[in-house]
């Protein structure tokens, strides 16, 4: 089957009619993300699906759908023209009609095939023609989506399927089963004859009893051995998986440890950088943070008040001193005005003075002083002077009292001054200290927060790294965690199972020897009847026939795998020209499936080959399967890949496509390779240097611009042949 043309109409983004003509070798279809590469692949998958009609409304082009008026209709169609014993055509289509604004009806599903004889084109069933020309089992090994689905032996039944269909010899399994049944039947028939033979019947019965016992024992051992072998294989696979992913596991563990370390650090930094500002306002007196300038202002003002007070007090003191001085001077002047030194005004006292006036006698000098005399007048004046003085004293006292009243009786200024003194010095220092403490604390918190951001970023980076690692390794975190824990357990369990398997094999060997001896004895019995002897020989013949079929079947699998390995290695060498590539080994496992391994010529298995090498390894096996299929069926079949080379670098892409271009195998690759970013414009441009070296057909698929990136009905893929 060689594909010649593909037509896609109104299939999702492929609006209207779209045609592709394919080369007999490589056809390259280049498109960027979202340009319709996978849609093209899925259109072919849809065409090749024969199990169901699958006329999904989602297959209809949104753009075409949006253009339809109510009552109008169009069709979704995928058609291939190919060469397979003459030109043929397969077409799948259905009609869609807009029955209302919101409703589309699908009708007239058709899956047709056409074959051409002479100039006539004959209609046939599409699924029948497809299954004739492109069998389901071959299709299974022809279409591959993505790089991760290239390993055909991921499927445990793949080996059986491949050997069954492509080893060139079919129906081995049925024949082995049939000849095994023949052996049993003939054994029973021979045994029955022997039991009826008079000469040997007793021996036969005894041998049969022993044989039954030993057969039961063998069956029991085999059952247990099978279980142990499965366990060993299972544990080996798990250990192999662990070993294969040892580097991944080490990295995984390392990243996890680093994340944990950083998370601890983050928790500490979070605690350090947290601060309850509201509480600290009062508990730590942070509220006084801005009080220092207030203190300064208060101090200046209090000083000014104090200074003013002192000035006023000094002024008052001077006034009082001046007044006191004046009084003293008057007194001194009065003293200088009389010769005799007068008695003080208070001598004699008031009572004495009044007694002397009343008695009209001066009791100071003892002389009489009759009323109207000068002495009497003197005494009256003296009394008046006394009274005046007393009065004056009283007046002076009140004046003095008035004078002695403090200028600042409430001591407010003193209080202000005291407060100023109290607030200055240590208190001021303390408040200044609060500002420093707050500043230091805020700086500390800022630094911790910066560190916290840094640590959070590191954690995020490591988490991304961890996710990338898991994505690349195709392993879940759960498996990696469990494997690390189970590593020791797997080894121990495998060791125990191996030890038991050795014991069972030894027992089995002994029992089988016993059985073989018993069977030999049985076969060497000399029955009386000739017919019985014939039955014995017939059974022996059937037994050899059965063994020959079993051996031939196993040899056939070995031959197929050897052939597959040889051809795969030829492709591997081609696809990795000028690079290291190793040797492909296809290992048959105990459960009759197969595993593809890469080995170095010095014998070592290459664990975890790089992505490109792994891809070329799997693709080599696919090319080999395809080549063997072609050889066995005398028909070629296309290989169709959707984005198989995502792990390739630019250099590898060049080599890869150059090699694929020269391989005589129809190969359709849908890819975003050979699209480079133009450094000047930032736009993606085709790598014409590489494309021009290719001899194959090259198409570019891309979205028609402009389009609304949120509206599917504006999306249309166009196919342009560029080479």
């Amino acid at each position, binding site marked *: 089957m060689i594909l010649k043309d593909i037509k896609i109409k109104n299939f999702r983004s492929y609006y209207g009619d779209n045609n592709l003509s394919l080369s007999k070798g490589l056809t390259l279809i280049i498109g960027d993300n979202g340009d319709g590469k996978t849609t093209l692949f899925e259109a072919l998958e849809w065409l090749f699906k024969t199990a169901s009609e699958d006329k999904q409304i989602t297959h209809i082009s949104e753009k075409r759908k949006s253009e339809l008026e109510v009552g109008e209709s169009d069709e979704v169609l995928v058609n291939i023209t190919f060469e397979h014993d003459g030109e043929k055509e397969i077409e799948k289509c259905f009609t869609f009609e807009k029955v209302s604004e919101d409703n589309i009806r699908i009708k007239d599903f058709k899956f047709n095939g056409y074959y051409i004889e002479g100039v006539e084109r004959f209609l046939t069933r599409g699924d029948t023609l497809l299954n004739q020309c492109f069998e389901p089992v071959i299709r299974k090994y022809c279409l591959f989506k993505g790089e991760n689905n290239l390993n055909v032996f991921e499927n445990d039944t793949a080996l059986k399927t491949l050997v069954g269909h492509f080893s060139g010899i079919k129906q081995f399994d049925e024949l082995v089963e049939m000849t095994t049944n023949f052996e049993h039947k003939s054994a029973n028939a021979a045994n029955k004859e022997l039991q009826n033979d008079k000469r040997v019947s007793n021996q036969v019965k005894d041998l049969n009893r022993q044989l039954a016992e030993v057969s039961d024992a063998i069956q029991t051992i085999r059952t247990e051995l099978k279980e142990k072998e499965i366990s060993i294989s299972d544990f080996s696979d798990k250990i192999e998986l662990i070993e294969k992913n040892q580097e991944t596991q080490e990295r995984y563990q390392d990243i996890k440890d680093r994340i944990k370390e950083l998370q601890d650090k983050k928790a500490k930094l979070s605690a350090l950088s947290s601060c309850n500002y509201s509480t600290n306002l009062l508990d730590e007196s942070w509220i006084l943070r801005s009080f220092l300038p207030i203190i300064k202002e208060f101090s200046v003002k209090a000083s000014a008040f104090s200074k003013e007070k002192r000035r006023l007090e000094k002024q008052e003191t001077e006034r009082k001193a001046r007044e006191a001085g004046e009084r003293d001077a008057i007194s001194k002047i009065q003293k200088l005005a009389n010769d005799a030194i007068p008695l003080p005004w208070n001598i004699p006292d008031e009572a004495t003075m009044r007694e002397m006036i009343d008695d009209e006698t001066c009791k100071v000098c003892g002389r009489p002083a009759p009323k109207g005399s000068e002495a009497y007048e003197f005494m009256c004046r003296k009394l008046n002077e006394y009274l005046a003085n007393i009065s004056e004293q009283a007046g002076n006292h009140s004046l003095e009292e008035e004078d002695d009243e403090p200028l600042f009786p409430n001591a407010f200024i003193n209080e202000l001054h005291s407060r100023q003194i109290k607030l200055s010095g240590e208190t001021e220092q303390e408040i200044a200290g609060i500002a420093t403490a707050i500043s230091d604390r805020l700086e500390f918190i800022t630094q911790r927060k910066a560190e916290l951001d840094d640590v959070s970023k590191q954690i995020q980076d490591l988490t991304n790294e961890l996710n990338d690692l898991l994505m690349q390794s195709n392993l879940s975190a759960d498996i990696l965690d469990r494997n690390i824990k189970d590593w020791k357990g797997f080894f121990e369990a495998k060791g125990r199972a191996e030890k038991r398997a050795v014991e069972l094999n030894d027992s089995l060997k002994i029992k089988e020897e016993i059985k073989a001896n018993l069977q030999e004895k049985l076969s060497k019995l000399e029955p009386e009847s000739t017919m019985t002897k014939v039955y014995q020989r017939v059974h022996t013949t059937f037994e050899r026939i059965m*063994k*020959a079929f079993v051996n031939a079947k196993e040899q056939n699998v070995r031959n197929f795998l050897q052939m597959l390995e040889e051809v795969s290695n030829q492709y591997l060498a081609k696809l990795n020209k000028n690079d290291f590539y190793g040797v492909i080994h296809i290992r048959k496992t105990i459960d009759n499936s197969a595993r593809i391994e890469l080995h170095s010529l010095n014998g070592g298995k290459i664990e975890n080959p790089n992505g490109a090498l792994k891809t070329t390894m799997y693709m080599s096996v696919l090319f080999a399967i395809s080549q063997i299929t072609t050889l066995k069926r005398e028909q070629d079949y296309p290989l169709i890949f959707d984005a198989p080379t995502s792990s390739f670098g630019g250099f590898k892409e060049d080599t890869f496509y150059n090699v694929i271009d020269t391989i005589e195998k129809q190969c359709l690759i849908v890819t975003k390779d050979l699209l480079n970013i133009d450094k000047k414009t930032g736009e993606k441009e085709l790598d014409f240097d590489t494309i021009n070296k290719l001899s194959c057909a090259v198409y570019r698929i891309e979205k028609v611009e402009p389009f609304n990136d949120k509206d599917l009905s504006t999306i249309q893929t166009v196919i342009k042949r560029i080479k």
Partner: protein
Amino acid sequence: MSMYQTNEDKLLQAVLNDKQLMDIYGVDPDDYYTITDALEADVPIIKAIAIIIERHEQKVSEKEIYTEVSNQLIRQL
């Protein structure tokens, strides 16, 4: 000798290449390139193998094949 090998011919060749058959019966697979060759063989086991393959291909039932092969062997052995 036909150059084209059918699936039966290939099966026959694969079975006749069994070492035990060659050793015990002195079978040379090259003497029986096709099923037709083997069906005409004088060696009973070769003929039996050929009948099994041929009849299986012809969709004959297992019981019938067993009877046919057994009878053939009984006659020849």
